């Protein structure tokens, strides 16, 4: 049981304000979405990219007059990819900022910890839309009813990776993972996928959340190498995963290493390229990445075209308080594309709500959405027991310093 005396005080104040303001917000008020994500620290690219993609689409909607005359705004707080701050931010967003809904949260340990609050604030109809995590806790009872996902799950991603590696003749699979709820989810996904084929993972090594690229992950490399795997599935965030790849390659180990969507493949690739330039070698060989959105270079998809147009047009920045002028922002990324798609789907939901923006209707309205066309050639549907819009997993690899879709795993055949 958690108690926040300060929050309780603001809750009382908030309730009073709600009562005075009347049952519904004024028509021309903004629709405020609450976002808690990593905007600082070693995983900040994840929060920033997700935010930027969403901001591009909301900017587009707002410039066109908003939804029913109401503009969309994101209230963003940094949690540094840590559960404690994520919890505090969530309370603040619900009680103090009285946000319409929670949106674009980043990370499994953070979301997992905040989930009970959705139950606690059931009376206020608190919902979390499209978190940037494929973990199971918010896809399973009792919290699944409070959360809507767009992306495929880590189980689906890891299962896809395992299946493809097995097909390529790589049966000895080891896992390198972040020792927390996220890493455990990925580890469990690999374990389940292997178990289907009567296999077990041959080795595992862990790292602590928040590990920086500058740190050595040589011990983990040595532990896994001893198990002599054919492939390593890496469940982590970009800084540590890049460091692991660097140390593996520096040790002369060229085993294929696969990362999953959450890693932030663009940030990972950037770190490895910068390091490779300094060292005069290529660290991006033998890499696979599973993605939950298509490649941003896939111009055959209308959504990708629109995304690129809007990104170029608005060149969205991170939230002002977390913006550092000197940092170059990527033109496109998987993160911002996911943020963009999340925003696009959310606008569909809000439009579906009509003029009555009663939060209590959010669940029913969203569950009623079927075959929504976001421009991905994959229809997005929800249902009473289906709170995940897409199941599709995409794969990419790095070729000649460029991230490209991986459709043929022939290069990884043993």
């Amino acid at each position: 049981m958690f108690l926040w005396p300060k929050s309780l005080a603001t809750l009382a104040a908030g309730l009073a304000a709600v009562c005075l303001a009347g049952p519904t917000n004024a028509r021309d008020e903004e629709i405020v979405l609450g976002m808690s994500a990593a905007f600082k620290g070693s995983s900040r690219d994840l929060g920033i990219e997700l935010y930027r993609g969403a901001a591009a689409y909301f900017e587009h909607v707002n410039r066109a007059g908003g939804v029913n005359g109401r503009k969309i705004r994101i209230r963003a707080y940094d949690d540094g990819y840590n559960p404690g701050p994520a919890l505090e931010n969530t309370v603040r967003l619900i009680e103090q900022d009285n946000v319409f809904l929670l949106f674009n949260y980043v990370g499994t340990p953070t979301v997992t910890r905040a989930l009970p609050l959705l139950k606690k604030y059931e009376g206020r109809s608190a919902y979390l839309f499209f978190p940037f995590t494929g973990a199971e806790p918010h896809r399973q009872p009792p919290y699944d009813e409070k959360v809507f996902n767009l992306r495929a799950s880590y189980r689906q991603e890891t299962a896809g990776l395992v299946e493809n590696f097995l097909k390529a003749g790589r049966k000895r699979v080891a896992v390198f993972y972040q020792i927390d709820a996220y890493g455990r989810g990925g580890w469990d996904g690999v374990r389940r996928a292997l178990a289907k084929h009567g296999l077990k993972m041959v080795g595992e090594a862990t790292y602590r959340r928040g590990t920086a690229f500058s740190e050595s992950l040589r011990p983990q490399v040595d532990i896994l190498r001893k198990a002599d795997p054919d492939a390593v599935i890496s469940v982590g965030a970009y800084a540590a995963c890049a460091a692991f790849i660097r140390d593996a390659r520096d040790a002369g180990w060229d085993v294929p290493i696969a990362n999953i969507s959450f890693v932030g493949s663009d940030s990972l690739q950037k770190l490895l390229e910068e390091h490779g330039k300094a060292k005069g070698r290529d660290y991006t060989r033998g890499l696979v990445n599973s993605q939950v959105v298509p490649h941003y270079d896939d111009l055959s998809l209308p959504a990708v075209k629109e995304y690129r147009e809007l990104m170029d047009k608005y060149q969205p920045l991170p939230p002002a308080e977390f913006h550092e002028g000197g940092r170059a922002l990527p033109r496109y990324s998987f993160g911002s594309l996911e943020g963009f798609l999340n925003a696009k789907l959310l606008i569909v939901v809000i439009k579906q709500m009509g003029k009555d923006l009663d939060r209590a209707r959010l669940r029913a309205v969203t569950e009623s959405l079927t075959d929504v066309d976001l421009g991905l050639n994959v229809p997005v549907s929800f249902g009473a027991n289906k709170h995940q819009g897409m199941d599709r997993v995409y794969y990419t690899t790095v070729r000649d310093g460029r991230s490209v879709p991986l459709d043929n795993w022939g290069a990884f055949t043993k």
Partner: protein
Amino acid sequence: MKNARLLTKALALLGGLFAVTLTATALFSAWLLDSTITVEHESRGKAIANSIATVSVETLLYRDLSSVQAMIDQYLDTQGVSYVFVEDAQGEVVAHTFSPAVPEGVKGLQGRKQKTVSVRSAELSGVGDVADVCSPILDGQVGAVHVGMSHDVIHSAIRAAVLKLVGLVVAIFVVVGLLATMLVRRLVRPLREMAAVMKDIAEGEGDLTRQLEARGRDEVGETARWFNVFIGKVHDIVARVRAASLRTVTVSGTVAAAAERLSSSAQEQASVLEETAASTGLVNESGQALEEIVTSVRGVNGLMAEIAGTTQQQSSGIAQVNRAVAQMDVSVQQNAAQTEELTTTAQDLAQQAQDLQALVGLFKLLDGAGEAAPADGVGAFPPPPRRRAAPAVRGLTPAPPRV
């Protein structure tokens, strides 16, 4: 430092006492802390393991491992918890907090088919010394929760506590040492002065006018006061001896003078007698000579009167006179010898008195003591301490000098 031997001894004793105290206290508190903290530590581990075991039944059965992991992660922040891991009914570790990998030794901790919570000590590589607290989930039907309570945390806590204790005791030792140094210095100073005075009296000028500064109402002050009284007594005795010897010198001088006078008159008498003997034939002169003899010899002895009587009866004959004169000569000769002896004795006495003078002169006395007021000289010294002496000392207490 030769003069600080008492201080060195006192400090060494103090240091030794402190060292013993410190060692005993440190060992005792380490033991006490170890037992209390270990018990507390293990019960904390049991509480955590039990709570995870209780909560994780449904999570393990109906939910995914991410939720289990999120749950056990929270306990890593608890002080002393070095790991948490969950094994399923098949004994496979399904969630843990180890990084970079699960230590080899963990296998030995698994598969305890027990229905109650148990504690086992283990040493895991990369983790250290731990007490592995194992709590079965649903009587072990679903699995078990293991919580590793670090012994290193206990040890470092004990180390820190004992270090603080040692620091405190050393600080106290420094303060007490400084105080003791000051105290011992204060005690030793009068003793040193006393020693110096005694040394001075023993080897130096024999200054009996020196007095110790009798500060304080403690044993040292008392000793100093009694020492002063003692020195006063010695002073008085020496003063009296000096006065007495002075008198002796005077008296012996007088005796010597008298003896001299006596000797010279006897010789005079003897020569007169010889003249008388030579001039027995000279009757003219004999009357006058005998007259002289009578004058000279009067008061010497009764024999003179007899001679006078005899000489007045000249008619008895010269032979008779001659006999008498010879007899008288013998007597005078004897008298002279006795006088000589007296003179020698007086001279001896004077010599001895002078020797005594010289001897007591070695001591320095108050001005005039022994010359002007031999009996009252003691009045110059302070009265003896009025304090009650300790019972043991009472018998030795000198009689206070008369004032």
